[in-house]
């Protein structure tokens, strides 16, 4: 199994969600994060003048999938989360050794 961890723009989450649904992948876990990368921050206004915020709100989407589904998921995210502007984010793929469903106790062990 693989964990696909995508850091994306908040405003693209809806599109990503819909895209994954059409793949039949509903399951996901979402975390609000702050990020910094190539995008050096944004200018915000203050009472008087501006200031720069260097940590911007992003959304982390985590999806654990079977190895063979990883590519499809990555492609959907790539398509739906891309604006082409700096700050689109990154996808990290990590190994997951076992997945267990708490309700039933069923485990992925051996399937990987």
């Amino acid at each position, binding site marked *: 199994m693989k964990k696909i961890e995508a850091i994306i723009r908040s405003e693209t989450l809806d599109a990503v969600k819909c895209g994954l649904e059409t793949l039949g992948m509903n399951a996901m876990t979402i975390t609000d994060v702050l990020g910094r990368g190539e995008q050096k921050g944004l*200018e*915000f*206004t*203050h*009472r*008087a*003048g*501006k*200031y*720069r*915020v260097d940590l911007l709100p992003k959304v982390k989407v985590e999806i654990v999938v079977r190895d063979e589904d990883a590519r499809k998921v990555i492609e959907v995210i790539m398509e739906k989360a891309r604006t082409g502007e700096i700050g689109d984010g990154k996808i990290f793929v990590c190994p997951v050794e076992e997945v267990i469903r708490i309700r039933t106790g069923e485990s992925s062990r051996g399937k990987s």
Partner: protein
Amino acid sequence: MMKHGMGSKLALLLALALVALPLLSSPVAAADGEVDSGDTAWLMIATGLVFIMTPAVAFFYGGMLRKSNFLSMLGQSILIIGVVTIIWVVFGYSLTFGTDHAGLIGGAEYLMLNGVDISPSLIAPTVPHILFMMYQGMFAIITVALIIGGVAERMKLSSLIIFLSIWTAAVYVPVAHWVWGGGWIYDLGALDFAGGTVVHITAGVSVLAAALVLGKRINMAKGGQEVPHNIPMVVLGGALLWIGWFGFNGGSALASNGLAANALVVTHISAAVAATVWGLISWLDTGRVSVLGLISGGVAGLVAITPAAGFVNPTGALFIGLGAAVVCYGGILLRKRLGFDDALDVWGVHGLGGTFGAIATGLFATTTVNAAGKDGLLYGGGGDLLVAQLISVAAVWAFAFGATFVLLKALSWVMPLRMSKNEEKIGADIIQHGESAYYLR
């Protein structure tokens, strides 16, 4: 080496005991004379409105800070309500509004509110004396509360309370007496309807001194940026300040009449204009209309109209609102350039806004609004009033700055004024109050 913690605990206890005990003897005389129900109703509600300004200012300030210091603003504001009320009741009112001595300080006749009862007040003959006392007490509270915005995020709570208690007695009370209690500025003929000098210059300039003595917050010293953590709370505080100011300026007529109505109306107009203009400046300067700026503009307009509210007409209010936005926006930029760490720009908004308003009163005051007032430079009154205004402004700047500077320097030899570096990073809420504002899970 003396341990500060215990020492200051004892000192505080002692101070409080001294302050509290004499209250025991305060008698209340029976009423005589006639109180007007409408005037009394208005002054009661105005008292309530000025009261709410103190928590309001804490929300206004606290929303602009890091979330780890929000509660410290709220807590300090409540403590100030408590401590300044006690000081006011015990001796503050008397020394401010008791019989004048040499133009400098009031008399002792009202110590422990002796004789301050429900019979009509001398100064406000249609409302109960006890109500006049409390209404004025609310001004003392809000003035002191303004200061916490300047020393936020770094001052120790115990030192702050000691500092502000002394400051109330040593700075606020004399200035209020000079201007309103029949002191020398009053005799000079300077006008300050609702506290441009007494409240805003005094607080704003004292913060300048305090910021210099205290030095910068660690984060600011490193060139860090303060990100306001909850702007809706700032707007909430600002909106409550705005309506509170209707009682602050409108109530200063000490009656429910045309003068009160005029004060209320020009107050709103000045704030409305200043908010709009600030938004416009923000837009021209940054390309965006800062909401923080809009509400700050409103507050700047409220500050600047304060000394003038009972003396100017809507036209005057328009110009004062306009000027307030320009002056205070510039004041904040100037403070950033100068680089001292007045955390929430109390100097820039209240100090400079109050100064501008006091001077503008010398320009726009007109006796068509208030026969008991004077005509300013632009209304055929010549420069007399303007000169009186300038003198009073200069005197209060000098006094407030000097007294606060000396007071804090002296205190700094006795006790640490600031939290430790590590404490400052963790934030005053946990360090001083043992609490966190939010636990959102």
